[in-house]
């Protein structure tokens, strides 16, 4: 494999793959648009109002939060992760193995890198859309401060790229579709629970907090929460830097791995 050529093989044609996937989403829009809008309403009901009746306040980092307001940005970050990672993880696997989409497109002027960059872009688009939809809902509930919350939109695009790359990487590693249960169990679910999404990590054992620092969702949650509370500070640039570096690494790693699976 010609390593330096990997980036050079990405052209504007990646957008054709992106458009193909977006077109599919528009055909099946009911299943793509309604869940991201309704999911947060369910969460707000269950956790915010149901659990919130018992847990009214959260103390974290010397600050007191209302419970519903604390978990709302967590929901935004989780939505970005779920919708982008599952799109590439299961979606790309299906397009690779069952629908043979990549096999069809690779004989057209698109390179393998165009196809895979397009996959990541469309996964990221789903993450961005979900993040924006959930942000809209929590805004309607009065749980997001403005203008600081607008930072969440570009952040959702970045998070989308990051988790779509992870998803594509897992799809490239899995011999069978059932193998994808493993990254869900070991990567997605632990992040969903232990990234400071629904409760702060202050009370957790030290090793849990150290692990959480490695998880990308933790950093996405930190910035998102600071944005909804209008508490954006310079030290969040470290979180941003971590996300940027990890995204660059995962874009490269995932495209390279999946290309190896496409072209033997």
């Amino acid at each position, binding site marked *: 494999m010609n390593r330096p050529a990997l980036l050079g093989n990405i052209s504007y*044609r990646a957008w*054709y793959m992106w*458009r*193909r996937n977006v*077109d*599919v989403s528009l*055909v*099946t829009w009911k299943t793509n648009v309604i869940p991201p809008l309704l999911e947060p309403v369910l969460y707000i009901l269950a956790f915010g109002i149901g659990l919130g009746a018992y847990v009214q306040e959260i103390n974290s980092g010397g600050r007191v939060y209302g419970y519903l307001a604390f978990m709302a940005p967590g929901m935004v970050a989780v939505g970005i992760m779920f919708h982008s990672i599952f799109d590439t993880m299961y979606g790309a696997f299906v397009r690779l193995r069952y*629908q*043979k*989409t990549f*096999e*069809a*497109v*690779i*004989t*057209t*002027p*698109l*390179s393998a890198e165009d196809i895979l960059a397009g996959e990541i872009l469309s996964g990221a688009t789903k993450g961005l859309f979900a993040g924006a939809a959930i942000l809209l809902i929590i805004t309607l509930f009065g749980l997001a401060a403005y203008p600081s919350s607008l930072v969440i939109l570009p952040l959702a695009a970045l998070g989308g790229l990051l988790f779509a790359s992870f998803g594509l990487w897992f799809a490239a590693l899995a011999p069978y579709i059932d193998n994808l249960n493993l990254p869900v169990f070991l990567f997605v679910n632990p992040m969903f629970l232990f990234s400071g999404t629904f409760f702060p990590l202050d009370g957790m054992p030290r090793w849990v907090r150290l692990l959480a620092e490695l998880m990308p969702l933790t950093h996405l949650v930190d910035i998102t929460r600071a944005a909804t509370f209008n508490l954006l500070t310079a030290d969040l640039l470290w979180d941003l830097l971590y996300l940027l570096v990890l995204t660059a690494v995962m874009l490269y790693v995932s495209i390279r791995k999946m290309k190896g699976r496409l*072209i*033997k």
Partner: protein
Amino acid sequence: MTPVVKASALRKCYGDLCAVDGIDFEINRGECFGLLGPNGAGKTTTVKMLTCALPVSGGDITVEGLSVNADPRAIKYLLGVCPQEVNLDPDFSVFKNLIVYSRYFDIPYAEAKERAGELIERFHLHDKLERPIEDLSGGLKKRLLMARALINRPKLLILDEPTTGLDPQSRRQIWDEVRGMKRNGLTTLLTTHYIEEAELLCDRLVIVDAGRIIEQGTPPELIKKHLGGDGNLEDVFLKLTGRHLRDE
């Protein structure tokens, strides 16, 4: 006249195992060229190298003078590929399948719409325009794959086992289409293991086995050479490749 395709000492090896082990052939302009061989002979591997979906291990294959090693993208603009396996987009209608595919070749929408309309007419797909792909019969899917392969007006059409699994009616319809395209001067590469099909459609052919070309010529030439003119191409094929069963 320069050939449209030229393979020279073409090889594809995985370690010590060579799926294609040094083959040479040329496809002339306007002819239907057959690539025949039993399962595992190296037909699909050769096609994949030609369509730039597999890097070559050695030698070269050129299309209109462009090498797969140097200009894969430029080559892919010139090809129309009708694959062995159905890889249509199941979420799109017949029409949308053609339109989405046309984008990959930078064809503007207005132009693509016109071409799609012509192809739908020609391949008798108009009754099924808005049907989901999974409702189409095997023959219709193949016709749509063929229509899709022509949307970019290719210089070389590649038909990879175009009639496998089809009923005789659909098979004949595909044959008629191939003959029609030949009359229009389209250069075609056909792989098949239906020898009758090759005998009927191909101007020239090569028989490959174990990654090497074991015989080549026109169908009548081969029948004359190996059977003294008495018999059919299938008898020649079996004589050359033996009767033992092959696994992929």
